[in-house]
């Protein structure tokens, strides 16, 4: 297992990061409108000074190699939009917030999703199945920019239970996590239900029942593990999506996370900030994908012995 992880780190992570950096670097420069374009026109002299200051007057290949060198040194450069800050600092400040939000949302999605999936699969075609399918599907139908304000209206304005925005008290975590995680509840519930139905007809479930063990144990111990494999492979992208896709929720609830930086950086053409977030998100995503592969191997011994053979 350890060899597997190290192999992955050195032979896959580094090259793919390098590729991402390269593609992103040049693609960003292709987008029209530079970082200093503004509604009130800037004098050409000032523009020239700004370009010199940030090294944008150099040939693009030189900029590229300079940037690579800095990144290897761990320096992501100064933000163009926020001149007093550098990108590393901004990410370090904002990411923990997005991570926290993402983790809560994922936790909620996993618990509610698997729960709903179990409920639905316990009696396929029954009332519970339809109820939980309808509830979880409505999670997909209602985008976060609708769900967020709706929840705020209900719990924040009508009932006055929570703050309508902000990120200071513990209760400030609830509504954003719900709004963000809701979409994934449906996905996880459906994958769980599908996986369970698939598993419940396997011979080994009959064996387990023939042993006379309680039905709930059959479900959780015997069926769920196999049924969760598709869920687990979905969790990688889901986790990445939750952590990187929190822009809307962060805006609605005014949460100081990285998602806002990422999207506004793209619109501001804050080159260094975009590159910084791209690299950072890439690492996050690769991390989660590796985590998923490991989890899958932990769940499926057959896969594990394959990995061990390879390593």
């Amino acid at each position: 297992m350890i060899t597997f992880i190290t192999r992955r780190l050195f032979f896959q992570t580094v090259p793919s990061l390098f590729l991402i950096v390269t593609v992103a670097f040049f693609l960003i420069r292709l987008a029209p409108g530079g970082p200093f374009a503004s509604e009130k026109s800037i004098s050409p002299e000032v523009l020239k000074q700004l370009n010199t200051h940030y090294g944008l007057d150099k040939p693009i290949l030189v900029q590229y190699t300079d940037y690579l060198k800095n990144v290897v040194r761990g320096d992501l450069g100064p933000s163009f939009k926020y001149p007093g800050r550098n990108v590393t600092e901004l990410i370090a400040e904002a990411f923990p917030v997005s991570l926290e939000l993402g983790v809560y949302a994922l936790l909620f999605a996993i618990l509610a999703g698997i729960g709903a999936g179990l409920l639905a699969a316990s009696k396929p075609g029954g009332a519970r199945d339809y109820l939980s399918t309808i509830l979880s599907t409505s999670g997909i139908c209602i985008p976060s920019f609708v769900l967020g304000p709706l929840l705020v209206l209900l719990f924040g304005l009508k009932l006055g239970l929570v703050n309508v925005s902000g990120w200071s008290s513990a209760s400030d975590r609830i509504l954003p996590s719900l709004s963000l995680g809701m979409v994934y509840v449906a996905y996880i519930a459906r994958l769980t239900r599908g996986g369970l139905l698939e598993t419940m007809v396997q011979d080994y479930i009959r064996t387990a029942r023939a042993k006379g063990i309680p039905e709930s144990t059959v479900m959780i111990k015997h069926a769920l593990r196999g049924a969760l494999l598709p869920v687990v492979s979905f969790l990688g992208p889901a986790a990445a999506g939750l952590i990187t896709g929190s822009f809307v929720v962060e805006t609605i609830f005014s949460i100081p996370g990285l998602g806002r930086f990422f999207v506004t950086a793209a619109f501001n053409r804050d080159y260094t900030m975009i590159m910084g977030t791209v690299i950072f998100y890439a690492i996050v995503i690769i991390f989660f994908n590796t985590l998923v592969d490991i989890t899958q191997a932990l769940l499926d011994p057959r896969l594990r012995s394959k990995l061990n053979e390879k390593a």
Partner: protein
Amino acid sequence: MVILDVRNISTTFKLRGTTLRAVNDVSFGLQKGETLGIVGESGSGKTVLCHSIMQLLPRPPADISGSALFGLQDLVSCSSKDIRNIRGNRISMVFQDPQAAFNPYLRICDQLIEPLLYHRRLSRRTAMDKVLSILEETGIPDPARRCRCYPHEFSGGMLQRAMIAMALITHPEILIADEPTTALDVTIQMQILQLLKSLQRQLSMSVIFITHNLGIVAGFCDRVLVMYAGQILESASGDDLFLHTAHPYTKALIRSVPSLHVNSGELYSIEGKPPDLTKEIKGCPFAPRCTYAQGECTEEDAAAGLVGVSHFTSCRRVLKGEISL
């Protein structure tokens, strides 16, 4: 002494408007210590019968009538809690394909230990000792190491041994073995059968042995039921079945066993297809394929009668003595 008294079991599946009669009015009794074979082609209802008795069929769509008295309890109608206390405890099962019947995601020991944990409420430690000793008994070398393996790391024969060990770990009164050797090599088959036999003697339990292989039945079973299209066509002691065959279907089955002794060039096979179970069957279900059949076989209700001591047949022509097989 009859420890399992099965009476008039009928199992139907209602599926989107069609009704499928998988088991049709089957009755039999299982003696203590007896080995009862149930023989028939695939789809004859043997497996469904056993699953019906053990409440392993989802209801609906399955609809089961009749009774199966085990002691004072009717297995067919008892509560799910009661049947759970019987399953894997007093009645155990062994399934056909061990690779599929073991949960691929759990260690062998974790699966073997379950009946003890749930029925005997033993601590993990003592239960584990029992698991190791029964694995030893079933002939698995180095059980302490092997039982920590996953099913895919076992060979088929080994797995089936483990499966038997799992079934017998609670010393059940009845073992239902559903084609336990079908998926295995011939040499392994024999080893498994011998294992079963010796363990049966040791534990003095009754065995219901489901198979489509008449060859196995011959040496292994005290009594044999021959099933076809969900019905019992003939029931006899192992010897009687071969020596005094009393149903054309049994006869055909025996003939279709490839034999080393007979050098006739071609293998025998029964012509035609089994009947469509979604349609009502009138008369003898085998009649359309039976070389002895006459008009009355399909026109009148099926017959039933004895041709010897506890030798039952449903063939009216045999009963009437019109044909001898």
